[in-house]
């Protein structure tokens, strides 16, 4: 049976209201403050280090995003940590709060489909993150120009903007996941805890587990071990398993983009490096290197959103 009428009816009003809610909420204030402060500190330190390290690097601006100084990690690593937190913060009570405030059936009794409510909330949260990211980007580029005194090249701007888009999809994965949880669990606290639990698992435990599981699937070869080398099969399995975590995909894609010297992510054999010319890759080639990871993040966003959509469509309106 086909339903009639547009699924987009009401998308605009829902999105505008959610945007207004996000921008005025205290939760958003705290998250923004957290991100800006950490990013600011990281960039400030990076600038000091960039000054002493590279005088002749053609990609000085990109260094601001990637250079670290122990014990502080670089800006994009911090972002990899904080973006999931921000996305979870914006999404964990998207749907269940409508049930708990008892506004759900009243809103759905208006001439809109559920599609509009879900998509509107998703797009509003994603735009909120997008706006914050853009502000952060302007801040960093501005600080970079001011403190380093070097105007950025067109390629640097392009690379860092593509980095923003990839970050946005990385946020999309976590946002879609937390919204899925907000549909499945009626209690916002449960949804938040499960989302944070998954985040902790994927960022802290999974890197350790991936290695252990890989050794079970493809045991280490003692001949390689005697030479102090990684067994290729084990190493390949470890990377494959690690890439189930969106954080890993994000890191690999960003490294390929922001560090033009990167020729490959993942295992690489010595013979593949023979005859290679050392130097920066053009933007197109860097994009090719980052493309599979970027597609992984985009696909993850879509799959999780669709999963949430299906569960939401089948859900009973009554509490």
């Amino acid at each position, binding site marked *: 049976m086909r339903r*009639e009428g547009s699924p987009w009816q*009401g998308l605009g009003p829902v999105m505008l*209201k959610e945007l207004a809610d996000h921008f005025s909420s205290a939760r958003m204030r705290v998250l923004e403050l957290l991100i800006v402060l950490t990013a600011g500190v990281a960039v400030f330190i990076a600038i000091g280090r960039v000054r002493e390290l590279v005088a002749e690097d053609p990609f000085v601006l990109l260094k601001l995003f990637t250079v670290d100084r122990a014990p502080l990690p670089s800006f994009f690593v911090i972002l990899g940590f904080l973006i999931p937190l921000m996305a979870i913060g914006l999404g964990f009570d998207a749907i269940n709060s409508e049930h708990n405030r*008892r*506004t759900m059936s009243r809103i759905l*009794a208006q*001439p*809109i489909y559920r599609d509009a409510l879900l998509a509107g909330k998703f797009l509003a949260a994603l735009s909120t993150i997008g706006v914050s990211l853009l502000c952060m980007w302007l801040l960093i580029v501005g600080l970079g120009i001011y403190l380093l005194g070097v105007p950025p090249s067109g390629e640097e701007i392009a690379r860092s903007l593509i980095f923003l888009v990839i970050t946005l999809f990385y946020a999309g994965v976590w946002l879609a996941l937390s919204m899925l949880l907000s549909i499945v669990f009626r209690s916002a606290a449960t949804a938040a805890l499960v989302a944070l639990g998954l985040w902790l698992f994927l960022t802290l435990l999974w890197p350790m587990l991936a290695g252990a599981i890989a050794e079970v699937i493809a045991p280490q070869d003692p001949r390689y071990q005697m030479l102090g080398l990684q067994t290729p099969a084990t190493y390949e399995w470890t990377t494959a398993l690690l890439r189930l975590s969106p954080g890993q995909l994000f890191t690999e894609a960003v490294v390929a983009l922001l560090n033009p010297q990167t020729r490959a992510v993942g295992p690489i054999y010595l013979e593949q490096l023979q005859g290679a010319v050392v130097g920066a890759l053009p933007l197109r080639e860097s994009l090719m290197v980052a493309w599979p990871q970027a597609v992984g993040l985009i696909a993850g966003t879509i799959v999780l959103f669709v999963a949430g959509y299906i569960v939401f469509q089948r859900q009973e309106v009554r509490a």
Partner: protein
Amino acid sequence: MSEPVITARGLTKRYGDVAAVDKIDFGVAKGEIFGLLGPNGAGKTTTILMMLGLTEVSDGEVRVLGNDPMRNPLAVKRRVGYMPDSVGFYDNLTATENLIYTARLIGIPAAEREQRIKAGLARVRLLDVADRRVGKFSHGMKRRLGLAEIVMKRAEIAILDEPTSGLDPQSTAEFLDMIEELKREGVTVLLSSHLLDQVQRVCDRVALFQAGRIVLMGSVSELARQVIGGGFVVEVEAKAAAGTELDARFGAIPGVLSVARVSEDRYRLTADRDVRAEAARAVVAANGSLYHLQVEEPSLDVIYRRFFENQAAARQGVRDAA
């Protein structure tokens, strides 16, 4: 009955093996107040949600204003206003802001929005708190805001789920008045309630639910006739002129089923309609003096209870006969 705006035929909703609504049939005519009454969990809310296309129909069909709510829910929801049981609003927004959001969802043109919101709030007497946050509102005020939304929407059908539960008697009376006002404007009202006596005053016709089925349907007096076999009890206090007996005269009034003499000057007539006028005429015609005349309308509670007593008795009878 004029043209029906809502019709249900064999409407069924199953959750697994349990039928929450079991093959119900009913029609609601344009401009009437129709009550879905019965205890909690009898299937009233499920029926309402099926009419709005908010839950899937398992079997049978329902038409609202000629549309199938499953196939074309937007057309239905554009013309029907719904106030859910325990209606909620966004607490951090003011009453006006809440209505602006709904108005946008409905697609009311920006030029009309303000005026229609004002009109809606004025109708439910919330205009003076229009700019206060809904979080500060009482239960009854939120209900009224829900009604304002329906007024603003200019809905042709208003569906109100448990509109009076949890309200104090005064608010209940006020709310029922507002519902009647809607009816005078030509809005068809469908309301559900478990408080039978409270809403019987406003309902033109009612359907009594029991475990997912409609067991009784019709106007209150029809049901009274059907179940109690009378329903109207008229109390008359009158002194008869010497030598005349009033009992026989009362008994001769068409529609009177029985006459009981409660005391010397008090009579209790059971009738299938309101026979006060005829009773008064009978007293006067017999040269008697009339002191007091009062009609007790049949109460839905009594009808409902009696219906199940009758059913139980019938079952008992069948068992005894066997």
